[in-house]
């Protein structure tokens, strides 16, 4: 057994492959957070009055929370205090090319994407994926726009949506995650710089996967993304979000908000592959990822499905959730979370059943390696009104090595006696006998580990769109090089 632990440790020494910094002139505001900064951000973005007002309300709420020391402390994670006045809340590449043409992009940016293995041109040509590239905080490229526009699908940066579709933004912004929701959501509402906006009109099936690559680039720049996706009656959309980040010494705060709204008979599928810099093997550096993601099945027969593959960040605090309000609506959460070295993840979901005959499915796979700590935290709540509600939950943990941890906190709250609940859980570890078996067949230790872990995650990976699933397996492989034995 000791040999395999050694192997795990050896493997765990590998460096983060995708750490590099792109040199781009940045347009930055001073450090710190106050009304002046919020006004400055809003002014830089040329926002209408209602946005500024909303941001200021959010700021005041956040300030009241901060005075009460209301930064959430209940999660199973530890980190030093965050100095919110020591953060730069806005940075944008100075060069702002025309949005429709790749040629006008700063070549440095293009090279960054190439290093990441996701050249825009390739993506454009290959998968038929429309890419809204978020480089630092401002969108610099949007493709396939015209094709989407023909069908009435709006897919643009949040800033652009504020300018061109203020009524839609006003109607749905904060309707799922209000600025009062939690500490980090309030912070985001006050200072968010950009993100994506999607509106799929009635009866339209979005003809392609919509994809955004996020990338944190500027040192000391917290990234505050905000994404809003609305699927109108009978509409269907699949959205992909993926990211990597360069090596940085200082911890970078990331507090994103994602809101999904599904009206009658609408379906939204939201897939994430997250591979931000996790810090070095001693836990220095790395991203703090405090994200609020929530979808609301407003209409009857609507469906929201979250799939996430979380391999990065020093700290992950993330609970993509569904409010199942419409009758017969469906919520799904499929998750793979991997922690290696000193990474900590506290992640899971909330399924709030309000409408009749609402159904939810939760399938989570937590992988802990190195000294990683992996926590599943889930809440299934069946309200009085939710007659005939059903939930199925399965949470599995896989341990690699003998210094990591897996924790499970399922909360179940049932207020209607017709509810049917199922909960399954398992914890296992990669055994020396499994590794030996695969190696005896010719596979290297790394390949063997990767194979075992991919097998463990299979039920989640098959929920991902095909090209994303391939990428997720690769990311897992890369993360596992540091993680497993």
């Amino acid at each position, binding site marked *: *057994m000791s*040999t*395999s632990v050694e192997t795990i440790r050896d493997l765990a020494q590998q460096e983060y492959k995708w750490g590099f910094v792109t040199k781009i002139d940045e347009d930055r505001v001073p450090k710190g957070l106050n009304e002046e900064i919020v006004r400055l951000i809003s002014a830089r973005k040329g926002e209408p009055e209602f946005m500024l007002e909303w941001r200021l309300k959010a700021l005041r709420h956040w300030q009241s929370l901060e005075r009460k020391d209301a930064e959430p402390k209940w999660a199973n994670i530890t980190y030093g205090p965050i100095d919110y006045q020591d953060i730069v809340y806005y940075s944008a590449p100075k060069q702002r090319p025309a949005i429709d043409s790749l040629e006008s992009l700063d070549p440095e940016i293009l090279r960054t994407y190439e290093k990441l293995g996701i050249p825009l041109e390739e993506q454009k040509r290959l998968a038929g994926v429309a890419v809204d590239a978020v480089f630092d905080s401002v969108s610099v490229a949007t493709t396939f726009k015209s094709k989407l526009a023909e069908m009435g699908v709006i897919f643009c940066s949040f800033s652009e949506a504020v300018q061109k579709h203020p009524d839609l933004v006003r109607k749905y912004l904060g309707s799922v995650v209000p600025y009062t929701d939690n500490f980090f959501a309030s912070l985001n509402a006050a200072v968010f710089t950009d993100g994506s906006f999607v509106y799929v009109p009635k009866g339209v099936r979005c003809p392609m996967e919509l994809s955004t690559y996020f990338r944190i680039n500027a040192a000391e720049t917290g990234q505050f993304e905000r994404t809003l996706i609305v699927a109108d009656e009978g509409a269907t959309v699949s959205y992909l979000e993926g990211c990597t980040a360069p090596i940085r010494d200082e911890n970078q705060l990331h507090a994103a908000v994602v809101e999904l709204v599904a009206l009658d008979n609408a379906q939204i599928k939201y897939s994430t592959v997250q591979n931000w810099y996790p810090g070095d093997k001693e836990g220095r550096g790395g991203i703090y990822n405090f994200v609020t993601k929530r979808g609301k099945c407003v209409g009857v027969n609507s469906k929201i499905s979250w799939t996430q593959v979380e391999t990065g960040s020093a700290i992950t605090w993330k609970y993509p959730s569904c409010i199942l309000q419409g009758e017969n609506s469906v919520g799904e959460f499929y998750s793979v979370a991997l922690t290696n070295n000193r990474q900590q993840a506290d992640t899971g979901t909330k399924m709030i059943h309000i409408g009749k005959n609402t159904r939810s499915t939760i399938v989570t796979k937590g992988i802990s390696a190195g000294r990683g700590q992996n926590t599943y935290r889930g809440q299934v709540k069946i309200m009085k009104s939710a007659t005939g509600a059903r939930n199925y939950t399965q949470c599995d943990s896989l341990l690699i090595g003998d210094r990591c941890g897996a924790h499970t906190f399922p909360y179940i709250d049932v207020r209607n006696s017709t509810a049917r609940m199922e909960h399954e859980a398992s914890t296992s570890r990669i*055994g*020396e*006998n*499994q590794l*030996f*078996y*695969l*190696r*005896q*067949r*010719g*596979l*290297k*230790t790394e*390949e063997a580990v990767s*194979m*075992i872990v*991919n*097998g*463990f*995650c*299979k*039920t989640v990976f098959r929920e991902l769109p095909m090209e994303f699933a391939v990428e997720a397996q690769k990311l897992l492989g890369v993360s596992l090089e540091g993680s497993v034995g």
Partner: protein
Amino acid sequence: MALLEIEDLHASVDGHQILKGVNLVLNAGEVHSIMGPNGSGKSTLAQVLARRESYEVTQGRVLYAGKDLLQMKPEEAACEGVFLAFQYPVEIPGIGNAYFLRSAMNAIRKYRGEDELDAMDFLPVFRERLKLLEMDDALMSRSLNEGFSGGEKKRNEILQMAMLEPRLAILDETDSGLDIDALKIVAEGVNALRSSQRAFLVITHYQRLLNYIAPDFVHVLVDGKIVRSGGPELALELEEKGYGWTEAEAQPA
């Protein structure tokens, strides 16, 4: 040159000395059987030859095709053509049987500098070998050994052997837990693979399997040493007289 030369092999597990000086020579084309009572070191010998790292070699040497086998990692030995059919095959959930086999074949091919097989090259061979072992096509998509019956697992081991085409195949009590029909199928699979290029080391507790796989040589392992070697008739003699007969011989005079 012999395919496998074992000289004065000593090995221990968790500090217990199990092998206490094994000497054995296998030539390509030969089938050797190792018999012996429980705890005599049969499985340890198999694991050591397959290079399991938790088994410590304390003395002796093993040459395989002229190379020092004891310097190889498990995957290197595998790629050099050493195959172990496990006594207790391991379950790997979520990994398709066919996918796993193709990955293993390609790992070995890559090691040897050969082109990797794509699905189109792989499938016809796979189907043919499935038929040989009277295994269901459905096994292709099932997870590796997961939920397999004892007999299915053992047949799956022989299927893998048939696909990977090793030069040295070690069968560790492949007959245990098999009913007579499964035993015949497994034996037929082995017999179909016998060739002048390949050697077999068939480890078994009972003589039964040897009715179907006729060995060229039979060795009796007792208390970590080979105490008797002979032809197929030795197996029959053992069946008749029991291991007590050889154990007595293992005592120093």
